[in-house]
């Protein structure tokens, strides 16, 4: 079959854990945008959802840090954080070992990846799932890009990961949905939490939505760190989605800086029918 859905979304823990600190209209409008993304995703009737995230030391640490890791479990669990702190109850999340294995084997033809049969989801995946699969009834395949422990891989490798993933999806019989989740500019869990560079965010989202590969890959980590903070390194997840959907543009359905959530809250959906590749009926 093929990729049937692709998009990007924010995952900051404040989105669910610190809702009381945000203006009600900010919180409600962003949650509504997330719900709209869920509706669009469900309309494509996916068999599984790949979530490309950037975890925060829930599973992977500097003793053995994979640049890219793909889940290969029958199931996962999350959130690893305190339920009250995150505002999300603990769940067993269904995986799909067989599909994961096939995807991993195909991706490995082009990009080296690690695999993990055990994976505890942190807010980086649980916040999106809380909105997109609230009944936890869709098979999830997690992918992690190391965005926390430098050295980080070049942006071009994240784009290549996305391209490899697209080839893998196109060769599987299942209907696959794909979501990349990360911050754009943000300085999370620091004294600067709440700082957002809206100019950087809008510039980056414009380039991402137009899928301008050369401009996406022209960012350097020095530039990102200076303009978008250490949280900005997570643009790798958006770039991987761009790689998976080369040839297609996207719609930014929602963007609004919400400082109590510590990020410019974003929902973007790719117009997959433009991708010029196989599409599912």
């Amino acid at each position: 079959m093929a990729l049937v859905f692709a998009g990007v979304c924010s995952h900051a823990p404040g989105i669910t854990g610190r809702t009381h600190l945000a203006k009600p209209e900010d919180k409600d409008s962003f949650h509504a945008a997330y719900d709209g993304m869920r509706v669009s995703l469900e309309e494509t009737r996916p068999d599984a959802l790949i979530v490309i995230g950037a975890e925060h030391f829930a599973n992977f640490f500097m003793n053995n840090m994979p640049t890219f890791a793909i889940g290969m479990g029958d199931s996962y669990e999350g959130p690893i954080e305190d339920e009250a702190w995150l505002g999300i109850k603990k769940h067993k999340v269904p995986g799909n070992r067989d599909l994961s294995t096939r995807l991993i084997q195909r991706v490995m033809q082009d990009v080296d990846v690690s695999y993990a049969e055990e994976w505890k989801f942190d807010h980086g995946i649980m916040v999106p799932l809380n909105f997109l699969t609230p009944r936890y009834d869709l098979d999830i395949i997690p992918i992690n890009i190391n965005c926390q422990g430098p050295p980080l891989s070049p942006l071009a490798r994240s784009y290549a990961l996305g391209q490899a993933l697209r080839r893998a999806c196109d060769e599987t019989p299942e209907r696959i949905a794909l979501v990349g989740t990360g911050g754009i500019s943000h300085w999370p869990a620091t004294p600067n939490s709440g700082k957002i560079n809206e100019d950087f965010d809008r510039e980056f989202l414009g380039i991402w939505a137009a899928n301008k590969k050369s401009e996406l890959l022209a960012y350097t980590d020095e530039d990102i760190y200076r303009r978008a903070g250490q949280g900005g390194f997570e643009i790798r997840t958006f770039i991987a989605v761009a790689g998976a959907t080369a040839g297609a543009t996207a719609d930014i359905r929602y963007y609004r800086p919400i400082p109590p959530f510590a990020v410019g809250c974003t929902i973007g959906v790719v117009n997959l029918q433009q991708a010029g590749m196989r599409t599912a009926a």
Partner: protein
Amino acid sequence: MILYYLQKLLFQLNRDPATRKQYESDFDGLLMEYDLTHEEKEALGKPDIGLLYVLGVNGQLLMHYAALKGYAWPDYIQSMKDGVAQHGPVRAGIYTMVED
């Protein structure tokens, strides 16, 4: 190795129930398992969230330790600011404080 094992301890504490149990029942014994400096041990024990931040602990690890120790979010943010005021700029890592 400075900082690496401090962060490793917090990583394990955040994700491993057995480490959490040992933290509560045998804190000194837990510290013995990691190659920590005297300053790091003191900062963990007090706890001095501000000093842990200045030592370079990644915020994604530190915010959970602060929550475990009962810090509300605004108090966690303030403790890092206080730490920088008291101990100087962040000494390592990528979670530095910048001008707003």
